[in-house]
Protein backbone atom coordinates (compact mmCIF):
# COMPACT_ATOMS: atom_id res chain seq x y z
CA UNK A 1 0.00 0.00 0.00
CA UNK A 2 1.07 3.57 -0.54
CA UNK A 3 0.23 6.39 1.82
CA UNK A 4 -0.08 10.18 1.71
CA UNK A 5 3.59 10.60 2.46
CA UNK A 6 4.43 8.51 -0.63
CA UNK A 7 2.34 10.88 -2.76
CA UNK A 8 4.09 13.88 -1.21
CA UNK A 9 7.44 12.25 -1.89
CA UNK A 10 6.56 11.53 -5.53
CA UNK A 11 5.34 15.10 -5.93
CA UNK A 12 8.64 16.35 -4.48
CA UNK A 13 10.88 14.26 -6.77
CA UNK A 14 8.94 14.25 -10.01
CA UNK A 15 10.59 17.43 -11.30
CA UNK A 16 13.97 15.90 -10.66
CA UNK A 17 16.44 15.14 -7.94
CA UNK A 18 18.61 18.13 -6.98
CA UNK A 19 22.16 17.94 -8.30
CA UNK A 20 23.91 18.35 -4.95
CA UNK A 21 26.07 15.98 -2.91
CA UNK A 22 23.20 14.85 -0.61
CA UNK A 23 20.09 15.14 -2.81
CA UNK A 24 17.93 12.76 -0.77
CA UNK A 25 18.71 14.78 2.36
CA UNK A 26 17.46 17.93 0.63
CA UNK A 27 14.19 16.18 -0.30
CA UNK A 28 13.91 14.82 3.24
CA UNK A 29 14.22 18.30 4.75
CA UNK A 30 11.40 19.57 2.52
CA UNK A 31 9.12 16.82 3.78
CA UNK A 32 10.21 16.68 7.43
CA UNK A 33 11.63 13.16 7.02
CA UNK A 34 15.14 11.91 7.49
CA UNK A 35 17.40 10.98 4.60
CA UNK A 36 17.24 7.22 5.11
CA UNK A 37 13.43 7.29 5.23
CA UNK A 38 13.37 9.00 1.83
CA UNK A 39 15.72 6.40 0.35
CA UNK A 40 13.81 3.50 1.93
CA UNK A 41 10.49 4.77 0.63
CA UNK A 42 11.85 5.22 -2.91
CA UNK A 43 13.31 1.69 -2.80
CA UNK A 44 9.93 0.36 -1.65
CA UNK A 45 8.01 2.25 -4.36
CA UNK A 46 10.40 0.72 -6.89
CA UNK A 47 9.92 -2.76 -5.44
CA UNK A 48 6.17 -2.23 -5.58
CA UNK A 49 6.65 -1.39 -9.28
CA UNK A 50 4.92 1.93 -8.85
CA UNK A 51 8.20 3.51 -9.85
CA UNK A 52 9.09 1.67 -13.03
CA UNK A 53 12.58 3.10 -13.17
CA UNK A 54 14.56 5.48 -10.97
CA UNK A 55 16.97 6.91 -13.47
CA UNK A 56 18.39 9.67 -15.62
CA UNK A 57 15.60 10.58 -18.04
CA UNK A 58 17.30 11.63 -21.27
CA UNK A 59 15.72 13.92 -23.84
CA UNK A 60 15.99 12.27 -27.20
CA UNK A 61 15.73 15.25 -29.54
CA UNK A 62 18.89 17.08 -28.46
CA UNK A 63 20.73 13.74 -28.70
CA UNK A 64 20.17 13.50 -32.42
CA UNK A 65 17.11 11.23 -32.40
CA UNK A 66 15.12 13.70 -34.44
CA UNK A 67 12.92 11.36 -36.44
CA UNK A 68 10.21 10.10 -34.16
CA UNK A 69 7.50 8.01 -35.74
CA UNK A 70 4.35 6.65 -34.20
CA UNK A 71 3.02 3.76 -36.25
CA UNK A 72 -0.60 2.72 -35.90
CA UNK A 73 -1.92 -0.58 -37.26
CA UNK A 74 -5.41 -2.07 -37.38
CA UNK A 75 -5.00 -5.77 -36.59
CA UNK A 76 -7.58 -8.44 -35.74
CA UNK A 77 -8.08 -8.53 -31.96
CA UNK A 78 -7.54 -12.30 -31.95
CA UNK A 79 -4.02 -11.83 -33.30
CA UNK A 80 -2.97 -8.63 -31.53
CA UNK A 81 -0.86 -10.22 -28.78
CA UNK A 82 1.02 -12.51 -31.14
CA UNK A 83 1.67 -9.69 -33.64
CA UNK A 84 2.90 -7.43 -30.81
CA UNK A 85 5.20 -10.21 -29.61
CA UNK A 86 6.83 -10.28 -33.06
CA UNK A 87 7.10 -6.50 -33.30
CA UNK A 88 8.93 -6.07 -30.00
CA UNK A 89 11.66 -8.45 -31.09
CA UNK A 90 12.97 -5.62 -33.25
CA UNK A 91 15.42 -3.55 -31.27
CA UNK A 92 14.60 -0.31 -33.10
CA UNK A 93 11.05 -0.41 -31.73
CA UNK A 94 10.99 1.68 -28.55
CA UNK A 95 7.38 1.29 -27.40
CA UNK A 96 4.45 -0.94 -28.25
CA UNK A 97 0.92 -0.48 -26.92
CA UNK A 98 -2.63 -1.57 -27.48
CA UNK A 99 -5.23 1.22 -27.52
CA UNK A 100 -8.97 1.14 -28.28
CA UNK A 101 -10.20 1.33 -31.87
CA UNK A 102 -12.32 4.41 -32.62
CA UNK A 103 -14.50 3.12 -35.42
CA UNK A 104 -13.84 4.14 -39.01
CA UNK A 105 -12.40 7.54 -38.12
CA UNK A 106 -9.46 5.80 -36.41
CA UNK A 107 -9.61 2.00 -36.73
CA UNK A 108 -6.17 1.32 -35.23
CA UNK A 109 -5.50 -0.77 -32.12
CA UNK A 110 -1.76 -1.42 -32.17
CA UNK A 111 0.73 1.41 -31.67
CA UNK A 112 4.49 1.32 -31.84
CA UNK A 113 7.20 3.96 -31.74
CA UNK A 114 10.46 4.18 -33.58
CA UNK A 115 12.88 6.93 -32.51
CA UNK A 116 15.52 7.21 -35.19
CA UNK A 117 18.29 9.56 -36.21
CA UNK A 118 16.66 10.42 -39.51
CA UNK A 119 13.50 9.91 -41.49
CA UNK A 120 14.90 7.61 -44.17
CA UNK A 121 16.29 5.21 -41.59
CA UNK A 122 12.95 5.07 -39.80
CA UNK A 123 11.09 4.44 -43.08
CA UNK A 124 13.48 1.58 -43.87
CA UNK A 125 12.94 0.12 -40.41
CA UNK A 126 9.19 0.35 -40.87
CA UNK A 127 9.46 -1.46 -44.21
CA UNK A 128 11.55 -4.15 -42.53
CA UNK A 129 9.02 -4.47 -39.72
CA UNK A 130 6.11 -4.77 -42.16
CA UNK A 131 7.84 -7.55 -43.99
CA UNK A 132 9.06 -9.48 -40.94
CA UNK A 133 5.71 -9.32 -39.13
CA UNK A 134 3.51 -9.62 -42.25
CA UNK A 135 1.85 -6.29 -41.56
CA UNK A 136 1.29 -5.14 -45.14
CA UNK A 137 -2.12 -6.83 -45.22
CA UNK A 138 -3.42 -4.53 -42.47
CA UNK A 139 -4.37 -0.86 -42.59
CA UNK A 140 -1.67 1.30 -41.04
CA UNK A 141 -0.33 4.84 -40.90
CA UNK A 142 3.03 6.30 -39.93
CA UNK A 143 2.95 9.63 -38.08
CA UNK A 144 6.23 11.50 -37.81
CA UNK A 145 6.43 14.10 -35.10
CA UNK A 146 6.96 17.68 -36.14
CA UNK A 147 6.92 20.30 -33.38
CA UNK A 148 7.30 19.38 -29.72
CA UNK A 149 5.17 21.79 -27.71
CA UNK A 150 5.84 20.24 -24.33
CA UNK A 151 7.89 17.31 -23.00
CA UNK A 152 7.91 16.69 -19.31
CA UNK A 153 7.49 13.87 -16.82
CA UNK A 154 4.11 13.00 -15.45
CA UNK A 155 2.90 15.35 -12.75
CA UNK A 156 1.17 13.86 -9.78
CA UNK A 157 -0.43 16.18 -7.28
CA UNK A 158 -0.19 15.13 -3.65
CA UNK A 159 -3.54 14.02 -2.32
CA UNK A 160 -5.23 16.79 -0.34
Amino acid sequence: MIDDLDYQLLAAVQQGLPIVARPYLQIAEQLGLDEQQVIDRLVRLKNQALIKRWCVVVKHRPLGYRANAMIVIAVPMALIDSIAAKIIQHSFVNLCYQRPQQGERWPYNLYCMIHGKDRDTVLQQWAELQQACELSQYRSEILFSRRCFKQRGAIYQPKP
Partner: protein
Amino acid sequence: MLSPLHKQLLNNYQQDFPLTATPYLSIAEQLGVSEDQVLSAFQSLSQQNYISRIGPVITPNSIGASALVAMAIPEADLQRVADLISAYPNVNHNYERENRFNLWFVLMADDSGQLETLISEIEQQTGYAAMLLPMLADYYINLGFELNLND
Protein backbone atom coordinates in the same frame (compact mmCIF):
# COMPACT_ATOMS: atom_id res chain seq x y z
CA MET B 1 30.37 18.81 -27.76
CA LEU B 2 29.81 16.10 -25.20
CA SER B 3 32.83 14.82 -23.35
CA PRO B 4 33.32 11.08 -22.71
CA LEU B 5 32.17 11.68 -19.10
CA HIS B 6 28.97 13.38 -20.28
CA LYS B 7 28.24 10.45 -22.58
CA GLN B 8 28.86 7.89 -19.86
CA LEU B 9 26.50 9.76 -17.53
CA LEU B 10 23.84 9.77 -20.26
CA ASN B 11 24.34 6.15 -21.29
CA ASN B 12 24.88 4.32 -18.04
CA TYR B 13 22.11 5.61 -15.79
CA GLN B 14 19.01 5.48 -17.97
CA GLN B 15 17.85 2.26 -16.34
CA ASP B 16 19.04 2.82 -12.81
CA PHE B 17 20.32 5.72 -10.71
CA PRO B 18 21.87 5.03 -7.28
CA LEU B 19 19.58 5.19 -4.26
CA THR B 20 22.42 5.85 -1.84
CA ALA B 21 22.95 8.86 0.44
CA THR B 22 25.63 10.18 -1.91
CA PRO B 23 24.58 8.97 -5.36
CA TYR B 24 26.88 11.28 -7.31
CA LEU B 25 29.83 10.00 -5.30
CA SER B 26 28.72 6.41 -6.02
CA ILE B 27 28.74 7.25 -9.74
CA ALA B 28 32.11 9.00 -9.44
CA GLU B 29 33.58 5.86 -7.89
CA GLN B 30 32.09 3.68 -10.63
CA LEU B 31 33.60 5.90 -13.33
CA GLY B 32 36.89 6.70 -11.63
CA VAL B 33 36.38 10.47 -11.47
CA SER B 34 35.66 12.92 -8.65
CA GLU B 35 32.25 13.69 -7.17
CA ASP B 36 32.66 17.36 -8.19
CA GLN B 37 33.25 16.34 -11.79
CA VAL B 38 30.06 14.27 -11.77
CA LEU B 39 28.03 17.08 -10.17
CA SER B 40 29.23 19.71 -12.61
CA ALA B 41 28.77 17.38 -15.59
CA PHE B 42 25.15 16.64 -14.59
CA GLN B 43 24.54 20.36 -14.02
CA SER B 44 25.75 21.19 -17.51
CA LEU B 45 23.72 18.34 -19.09
CA SER B 46 20.66 19.65 -17.32
CA GLN B 47 21.29 23.29 -18.30
CA GLN B 48 21.92 22.29 -21.91
CA ASN B 49 18.65 20.41 -21.92
CA TYR B 50 20.11 16.95 -22.59
CA ILE B 51 18.30 15.47 -19.62
CA SER B 52 14.73 15.98 -18.60
CA ARG B 53 15.36 15.03 -14.96
CA ILE B 54 16.95 12.55 -12.60
CA GLY B 55 14.02 10.85 -10.97
CA PRO B 56 11.11 8.51 -11.34
CA VAL B 57 9.44 7.03 -14.38
CA ILE B 58 6.06 6.12 -12.96
CA THR B 59 4.39 2.92 -14.16
CA PRO B 60 1.49 4.05 -16.36
CA ASN B 61 -1.88 4.01 -14.60
CA SER B 62 -0.40 2.81 -11.31
CA ILE B 63 -1.38 6.17 -9.84
CA GLY B 64 -4.46 7.82 -11.20
CA ALA B 65 -5.51 7.53 -14.82
CA SER B 66 -3.88 8.70 -18.02
CA ALA B 67 -4.60 8.57 -21.71
CA LEU B 68 -3.13 9.56 -25.03
CA VAL B 69 -5.34 12.16 -26.68
CA ALA B 70 -5.49 13.05 -30.37
CA MET B 71 -7.10 16.10 -32.00
CA ALA B 72 -7.51 17.22 -35.59
CA ILE B 73 -6.80 20.97 -35.72
CA PRO B 74 -6.64 23.23 -38.78
CA GLU B 75 -3.02 24.27 -39.36
CA ALA B 76 -3.76 27.97 -38.88
CA ASP B 77 -5.18 27.34 -35.41
CA LEU B 78 -2.69 24.73 -34.25
CA GLN B 79 -0.32 26.95 -32.27
CA ARG B 80 -3.18 28.56 -30.33
CA VAL B 81 -4.73 25.21 -29.42
CA ALA B 82 -1.35 23.65 -28.59
CA ASP B 83 -0.55 26.55 -26.23
CA LEU B 84 -3.93 26.21 -24.50
CA ILE B 85 -3.31 22.51 -23.98
CA SER B 86 0.32 22.86 -22.88
CA ALA B 87 -0.84 25.26 -20.18
CA TYR B 88 -2.62 22.42 -18.38
CA PRO B 89 -0.42 21.02 -15.60
CA ASN B 90 -2.06 17.64 -16.32
CA VAL B 91 -0.62 17.53 -19.83
CA ASN B 92 2.75 16.22 -20.91
CA HIS B 93 4.30 15.19 -24.20
CA ASN B 94 2.33 17.56 -26.39
CA TYR B 95 3.43 16.98 -30.00
CA GLU B 96 2.50 17.93 -33.52
CA ARG B 97 2.40 14.91 -35.85
CA GLU B 98 2.03 14.67 -39.62
CA ASN B 99 -1.53 13.47 -39.93
CA ARG B 100 -5.11 14.73 -40.11
CA PHE B 101 -4.95 14.06 -36.35
CA ASN B 102 -2.09 16.48 -35.91
CA LEU B 103 -2.02 17.19 -32.16
CA TRP B 104 -1.12 14.41 -29.71
CA PHE B 105 -0.65 14.68 -25.98
CA VAL B 106 -0.81 12.67 -22.77
CA LEU B 107 -3.38 13.69 -20.18
CA MET B 108 -3.08 12.67 -16.51
CA ALA B 109 -5.83 12.69 -13.90
CA ASP B 110 -6.63 11.31 -10.46
CA ASP B 111 -9.19 8.89 -11.91
CA SER B 112 -11.14 8.19 -15.09
CA GLY B 113 -13.93 10.56 -13.98
CA GLN B 114 -11.54 13.49 -13.78
CA LEU B 115 -10.05 12.43 -17.11
CA GLU B 116 -13.48 12.74 -18.77
CA THR B 117 -14.08 16.11 -17.11
CA LEU B 118 -10.74 17.44 -18.34
CA ILE B 119 -11.41 16.23 -21.88
CA SER B 120 -14.79 17.99 -21.97
CA GLU B 121 -13.15 21.14 -20.65
CA ILE B 122 -10.44 20.98 -23.32
CA GLU B 123 -13.01 20.39 -26.07
CA GLN B 124 -15.04 23.34 -24.86
CA GLN B 125 -12.07 25.65 -24.48
CA THR B 126 -10.52 24.83 -27.86
CA GLY B 127 -13.67 24.25 -29.88
CA TYR B 128 -12.44 20.92 -31.30
CA ALA B 129 -13.26 17.30 -30.54
CA ALA B 130 -10.71 15.11 -28.75
CA MET B 131 -10.17 11.38 -29.19
CA LEU B 132 -9.33 9.58 -25.94
CA LEU B 133 -6.92 6.64 -26.37
CA PRO B 134 -6.09 5.00 -23.03
CA MET B 135 -3.48 2.27 -22.97
CA LEU B 136 -5.06 -1.20 -22.87
CA ALA B 137 -1.87 -3.23 -22.93
CA ASP B 138 1.80 -2.33 -22.68
CA TYR B 139 3.83 -4.82 -24.69
CA TYR B 140 7.23 -3.30 -24.23
CA ILE B 141 9.08 -0.21 -23.14
CA ASN B 142 12.65 0.57 -23.99
CA LEU B 143 13.38 4.26 -23.95
CA GLY B 144 17.13 3.92 -23.60
CA PHE B 145 19.20 5.89 -26.04
CA GLU B 146 22.71 4.73 -26.73
CA LEU B 147 25.36 7.35 -27.45
CA ASN B 148 28.38 6.33 -29.39
CA LEU B 149 31.36 7.03 -27.15
CA ASN B 150 33.56 7.44 -30.22
CA ASP B 151 31.40 10.08 -31.95
